[in-house]
């Protein structure tokens, strides 16, 4: 049964190899067919395993298979092995399913690009690495995938390498990611040495989980913090989020697949995967939640000011990833992964729709130069609208269920901390606002495009619109697997994850003081239910308010935002310029490193190292210039020296014998 799980990552690898070696000689259609079929095959295998899982009892839903020993050193052995359980199968389905749709879309979007084969080669390699990351059964193999997706991200951000900004963005992404990966590595080292000193040499998840009790709370806290640093890099959280907005330099489907739907969620997946360590470290959990919350709010405010539609989506992604971290930080792993899944649907959709807008607008990204596109590209408009509603959290679209689940769990698991919920809700309101701001600016009102661009506006071909429609349907229904009990659902997704995350403890009925009065009647059960219900209603209201504000500002009174920008230029430009974080990092880290580099060059290299080497040479030269005088070239001088020497030796020997 478990024999064929390794097929999931292998198909894209085969596609990668075919396209890498033969892609340039094959016709474009063949290249895209190979790439898409590879993904589809993986998707089919994942779906078969998923159906197999449904037939099995919950505890038996684990397929694990070791392929071969990879690194053996003493008692430590890292194997190449795969593990499919209820967590990784969901990731596989999302990666291969959304990935397949984006591959199909790419075939249309990239059709006229000269690097067509190269593009699909990278894309297949990326999916291979991503699947390795999620199906690996040990941390080391996960790290291989982790680095591999980072590499592909770099390659694809810098896909149009002739553009300076693209290649710089690629480098930035790679370097910032490396900082995070360093944390991942340190976490792994520490895990191996700590457990190894107690005789457990392993990085296999199941064995780690069985031996998690060997760690003290302090060690677990440090290890999980290291892993969290890795997650902040890959999943673009404060302080390492700066690379993601720049990553929009890549082709739009890449932004959709790598920088929204899959790769950036790797950090969330990793924390969910290591939930048994994180549960041991409440301090880390709190840090994860706070960082997630801050990132969510921070990125959402920036998203409200950007004009580039892809950048708005990028900050929205950072913000939504923050939500996922709030979820896993609150111990609601199922809710975090649930949001990861729904986010993959609607954010993938939004990016693809943005790509379709770009396609129609001859590459224009600035929403100030758009407007009135609703009638001209209706499929893109409707799918974009679905995405916006889903991300804004309006029921019954998918985003509502996952976001609400996170907000509720964060509130409940923190013992009823209302501030967390309020910040989360403000973020949700901002999200609704900036998404609809973008929607209204792009699709409503009068067109502000130049005549030349206007002339060319056209709907994208079928190969691009069909994936949009499929993703739009998923964005609507994707959340229905997690309808909470309160609304008469069964919260299937939470039950599904129970074998991995354990049974989530029943919430101890936190109440909100000012709501308690209103719902004073009823016992503790009633309190919990009423609190959940009232918070849910509040969240919906917040989302609707956000949408209404956007409507009011951008449809009814389009002059108001302009006046606001004029009256508060300081606030606006600070937020518009992303709080000058890039400049701050530039001043502290980049310039700091340059200064260190100059110091190393001038002092360490030129004075210390060059000085030593040149000094030795000068010293020997000096000694030589003194000694060369002895070498006068006169034979008799040498003979004299020899005789004097001989006399000395003889004299010494004679004296020794005599005395």
């Amino acid at each position, binding site marked *: 049964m478990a024999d064929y799980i390794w097929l999931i990552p292998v198909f894209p690898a085969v596609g990668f190899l075919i396209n890498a070696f033969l892609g340039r000689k094959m016709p474009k259609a063949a290249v895209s067919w190979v790439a898409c079929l590879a993904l589809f095959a993986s998707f089919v295998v994942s779906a078969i395993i998923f159906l197999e899982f449904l037939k099995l009892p919950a505890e038996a839903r684990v397929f694990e298979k070791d392929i071969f020993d990879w690194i053996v050193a003493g008692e430590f052995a890292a194997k190449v092995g795969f593990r499919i359980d209820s967590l990784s199968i969901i990731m596989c389905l999302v990666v291969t399913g959304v990935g397949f749709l984006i591959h199909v879309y790419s075939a249309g979007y990239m059709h006229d690009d000269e690097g067509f084969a190269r593009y699909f080669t990278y894309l297949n390699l990326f999916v291979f690495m991503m699947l390795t990351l999620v199906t690996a059964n040990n941390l080391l193999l996960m790290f291989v995938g982790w680095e591999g997706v980072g590499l592909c991200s770099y390659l694809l951000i810098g896909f149009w390498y002739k553009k300076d900004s693209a290649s710089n963005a690629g480098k930035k992404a790679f370097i910032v990611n490396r900082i995070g990966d360093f944390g991942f590595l340190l976490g792994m080292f520490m895990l191996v040495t700590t457990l190894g000193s107690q005789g457990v040499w392993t990085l296999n998840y199941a064995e780690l989980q069985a031996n998690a009790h060997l760690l003290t709370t302090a060690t677990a806290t440090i290890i999980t913090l290291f892993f969290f640093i890795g997650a902040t890099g890959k999943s673009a959280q404060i302080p390492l989020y700066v690379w993601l907005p720049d990553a929009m330099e890549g082709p739009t489907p890449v932004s959709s697949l790598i920088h929204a739907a899959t790769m950036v969620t790797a950090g969330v997946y990793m924390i969910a995967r290591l939930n048994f360590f994180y549960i041991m470290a409440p301090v880390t959990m709190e840090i994860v939640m706070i960082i997630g919350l801050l990132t969510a709010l921070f990125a959402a405010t920036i998203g409200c000011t950007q004009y580039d539609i892809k950048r708005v989506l990028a900050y929205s992604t950072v913000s939504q990833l923050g939500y996922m971290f709030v979820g896993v930080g609150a111990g609601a792993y199922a809710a975090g992964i649930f949001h990861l899944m729904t986010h993959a649907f609607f954010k993938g959709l939004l990016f693809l729709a943005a790509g379709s807008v770009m396609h129609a607008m001859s590459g224009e990204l600035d929403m100030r130069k758009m407007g009135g596109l609703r009638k001209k590209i209706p499929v893109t408009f409707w799918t974009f609208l679905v995405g916006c509603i889903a991300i804004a959290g309006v029921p019954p679209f998918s985003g509502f269920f996952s976001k609400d689940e996170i907000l509720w769990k964060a509130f409940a698991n923190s013992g009823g901390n209302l501030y967390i919920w309020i910040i989360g809700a403000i973020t949700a309101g901002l999200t609704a606002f900036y998404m609809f701001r973008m929607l209204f600016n792009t699709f409503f009102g009068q067109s502000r495009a130049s005549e030349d661009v206007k002339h060319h506006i056209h709907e994208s071909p079928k190969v691009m619109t069909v994936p949009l429609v499929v993703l739009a349907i998923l964005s609507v229904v994707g959340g229905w697997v997690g309808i909470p009990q309160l609304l008469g659902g069964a919260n299937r997704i939470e039950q599904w994850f129970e074998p991995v995350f354990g049974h989530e403890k029943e919430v101890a009925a936190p109440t909100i003081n000012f709501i308690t009065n209103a719902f004073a009647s009823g016992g503790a059960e009633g309190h919990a239910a009423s609190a959940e219900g009232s918070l849910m209603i509040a969240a919906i209201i917040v989302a609707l308010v956000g949408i209404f504000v956007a409507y009011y500002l951008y449809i009814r009174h389009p002059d108001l935002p302009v006046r606001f920008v004029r009256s508060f230029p300081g606030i606006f430009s600070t937020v518009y310029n992303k709080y000058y974080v890039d400049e701050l990092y530039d001043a502290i880290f980049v310039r700091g490193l340059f200064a260190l580099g100059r110091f190393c060059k001038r002092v360490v290299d030129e004075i210390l190292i060059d000085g030593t080497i040149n000094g030795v040479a000068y010293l020997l030269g000096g000694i030589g210039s003194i*000694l*060369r*005088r*002895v*070498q*006068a*070239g*006169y*034979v*008799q001088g040498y*003979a*004299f020296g020899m*005789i004097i020497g001989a006399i000395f030796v003889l004299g010494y020997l004679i004296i020794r014998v005599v005395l």
Partner: protein
Amino acid sequence: MLQAVPHSLYFALSAALFTIGAIGVITRRNAIIVFMCIELMLNGANLAFIAAGNMIGSIDGMVFVFFIMTVAAAEAAIGLAIFVLIFRLKGTINVDEINLLRG
């Protein structure tokens, strides 16, 4: 006959020959005379070998001497050829003026 003369005198003569040769090598300028002085040193050494061999009743000393004489003959042939070439090159075989090896 040989027995009559004490060995110490042979050694003294050998030492005298060697010293004269050495002084000649250091002080004389003409390369050919320097060369002759080297021969003198070699022969001083030869005499010491013969005397020592005779003193301990061994023919090893004589064997050494034969070898030294062979080497000296070869050396003379090569050395004189070198002098001819140096003379052609520099117009002199005065060792004071030959300092090609100066560092």
